[in-house]
């Protein structure tokens, strides 16, 4: 980079490839996510040295080793808290969290909700495979009720979390869902997340080929059109192979309708508004689950709200304005002092 120009070196996905051998199982959905990240990072206009990837423990949490940026592979559940410290120490950094359904919603649940509430400027990618992969196949907080896993041979008796509902309930300002099986859409969501001020939470449906293969099969290419709903701000909610189906609101309940049938017109469909002042619509969308509904993907909510770090540093500036730049000698002498001669 020349000193006189602010132009950045042109980075490519290759620049973000680390020398570490990737150790995920062949066919794991994590590969797709890694590939899209490496594609998106060079396009954001951020110099490589300003990226920091932070993770906890789990298959997803190996992520930082595989991108050639600064990174911390933390301990189980603590990624959001560690990343908070990084961001507060230096808000100039672009700080990303790679976490999983167990890491973020179980052992790290407390950090997860408080990070969202505070709106700390972190990009949080939660790889949801609805299972514990690294510990070899126990059920997770997003595993469906009744599911047989290694630790639930008679079926799970736990009611699962709906990750997006949790995030919205925790005051998240950016909430999105993406699919490991749809790289293009994943890229778009990652880009949107990267540009959001405050916490950007992205749930990524990720296939664990070894312990929970096909968990999201309904969203794979051949069935995707009928089972997912691609959200677009300001556009009516339409889906289906022929783009013939839509979502209508009856009272406070969504309903699947076919446009042109039973007197349903285009105008009757629900229109997406990711910037609504209240998160009611985003919450309603987060409750739509397969097979009763197509599962929405894309940006559910993107609200403008000052980030936590901005508030923190504004206060530092305010303190300096009011009290003056800190003077150590003055501070030590403050309070009632007396002389002994």
């Amino acid at each position: 980079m020349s000193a006189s120009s602010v132009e950045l070196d042109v980075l490519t996905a290759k620049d973000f490839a680390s020398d570490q051998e990737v150790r995920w199982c062949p066919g794991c959905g994590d590969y797709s996510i890694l590939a899209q990240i490496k594609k998106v990072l060079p396009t954001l206009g951020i110099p490589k040295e300003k990226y920091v990837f932070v993770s906890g423990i789990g298959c997803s949490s190996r992520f930082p080793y595989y991108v050639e940026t600064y990174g911390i592979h933390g301990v189980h559940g603590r990624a959001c808290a560690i990343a908070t410290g990084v961001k507060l120490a230096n808000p100039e950094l672009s700080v990303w969290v790679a976490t999983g359904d167990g890491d973020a919603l179980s052992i790290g649940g407390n950090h997860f909700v408080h990070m969202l509430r505070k709106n700390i400027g972190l990009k949080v990618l939660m790889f949801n495979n609805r299972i514990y992969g690294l510990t070899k196949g126990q059920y997770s907080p997003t595993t469906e009720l009744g599911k047989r896993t290694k630790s639930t041979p008679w079926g799970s008796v736990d009611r699962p979390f709906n990750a997006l509902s949790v995030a919205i309930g925790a005051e998240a300002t950016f909430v999105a869902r993406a699919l490991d099986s749809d790289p293009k859409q994943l890229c778009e969501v990652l880009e949107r997340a990267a540009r959001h001020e405050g916490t950007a939470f992205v749930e990524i449906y990720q296939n664990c080929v070894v312990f929970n293969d096909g968990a999201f099969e309904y969203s794979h290419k051949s069935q995707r059109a009928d089972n997912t709903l691609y959200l677009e701000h300001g556009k009516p909610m339409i889906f289906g192979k022929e783009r013939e189906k839509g979502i209508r609101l009856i009272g406070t309940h969504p309903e699947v309708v076919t446009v042109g049938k039973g007197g349903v017109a285009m105008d009757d469909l629900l229109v997406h508004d990711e910037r609504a002042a209240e998160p009611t619509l985003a919450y309603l969308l987060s409750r739509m689950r397969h097979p009763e509904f197509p599962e929405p993907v894309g940006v559910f909510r993107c609200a403008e709200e000052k980030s936590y770090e901005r508030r923190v540093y504004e206060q530092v500036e305010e303190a300096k304005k009011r009290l003056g730049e800190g003077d150590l000698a003055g501070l030590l002498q403050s309070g009632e002092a007396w002389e002994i001669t």
Partner: protein
Amino acid sequence: MVTKTQAVAQPIPIQEMETVTIRFAGDSGDGMQLAGTQFSNASAIFGNDVSTFPDFPAEIRAPAGTLFGVSGYQINFSARDISTPGDRLDALVAMNPAALKTNLQDLVKGGILIINSDAFTDANLKKAHYENDPLEGEELDGYQLFKIPITKLTLEAVKDTGLTNKQAERCKNLFALGVVCWLFDRPLDPPLNWIHQKFGKTPAVDQANTLALKAGYAYGDIVEIFPVRYKVQKASLPPGTYRRLTGNEALSLGLVAAARRAGLKLFYGSYPITPASEVLQELSRHKNFDVITFQAEDEIAAISAVIGASFAGCLSATGTSGPGLDLKQEAIGLAVMTELPMVIINVQRGGPSTGLPTKTEQSDLLEAVCGRHGECPLPVLAALSPADCFGMVFEAARIAIKYMTPVVLLSDGYIANGAEPWRIPGMDELPGLHPTFASAGTTGDGFQPYARDENLARPWALPGTPGLEHRVGGLEKKDISGAVCYEPENHQLMTELRQKKVEGIAKDIPLQEVHGPARGKLLVLGWGGTAGAIQSACEAAQAKGHDVAWATMRYLNPFPRNLGDVLKSYKKILIPELNAGQLLTLVRARYLVDAEGLNKMQGRPFLIREIGDRIEQILRGVSS
């Protein structure tokens, strides 16, 4: 009590005393902490050496009048150097029957007992489990009893300020303070200034408190119930500018000072916990010093954020107490593995579990040294007194930065809340701390995050530095490159390197100081907050001609390099601790010396005589 009577022109004679210990005791809502703080301030500003011991219940507002709701503040002020808040009370102010009942046993026979007689109602007597009014019986014979209707006199004094009765009554602590200030000839200016500062915005309250204080002072003068007044001359402390400092204040200032001298932002991540919360509160006031305070959602988040902030280049610190340290241990292991600098303050309290939140103990030493899974060494330091916290937290920061390691600093509830005069250091007395950050230019081709310098410290490479992109984490690291590595020999090597790095700090810390004969019959060895009581007990024994030396330790891991030789120079070693023998265990294991413990676990500091008595016994050849 060392006294000498002096005839003066005043109607009431003044008697000189070298050292006085006084305690204000009352309901937790009676403002005793405030009265005590103001009295110790006035004494310190007057020029005495001062040591204080606040003692309050765990309940925020325990039911009025109950025994468990009594709050006390003890002040020892002296014309000479003192190191403890004093064993026995020369004077006790008891604002109600419960305070009398729970504190009388500490008052010396013949001591001054000031009572708020208005509070000795049937209801209050019952709550304090008195069957008969002690003011009527013989129980208090043998003390100089002064019954003063403090509530009534306070109400009378402030009646024109327009305060409600309830508000007015709250000024009675200042009336009591006024009486005591008169009795011990303290200047009124320091408390008056404080009142104006605190209540200036509400003139009625300002005026009422001022009137109550002055009325108390005048009461002593006019009513002539006291046969003598007392005077404690100024102490001859080293010249300089002084202020009064609690341990927690000293920690806060020390952290700011260290960050400034290192040229770094200070990041303090913490979760509120007694008795460490004041550090978070105090630091949050100093944002203009580039102090970022982060009140985390829990103890684990606090240390985790500190790890992140350290990685990104702040001087980072967290503060907690025992239960919080338990929760932080896994993350501290990560800090050891990633070799990032940070200061972890543990203000110890009585444990285990919730234990005694507001009471002191020294029972986390082993936890600090050995409390994590795996081989997980880190330096452990301790402060000896409230003011010593300043220097020791600064030292902890120095070691953390120089050796790229988390450092645990142990304080305790007694040090945290106690106060003493502190000579304010000049800027030239504070050493510069010099963090060196790696840069692409200095590392040549391919950055090696686990290459080490002569101190075995790895480089600190900040995100944002081009060319130094690297990953740290909890998995074992390959020597030099820092890549994840499970090779058996490498794990052995890295385990030993981490150990050696911490051991190597021994060459960079002062030798253990010993006071008294360099070899002889008995060494009294202590650490942390018991230092004052040990010093006082040993100096008294030495003054009697006993063959005893004493040493109080600030460095607990690694130990000072001369410690083994010191221990071998004495026939007997006594280790008084507020725990069941933790330093004792470490010292015996490390040096194979037959030391013996003196162990107190009552949530209270040692009395000087408890240590003094044991010294006498040992020297008389009595085995423990």
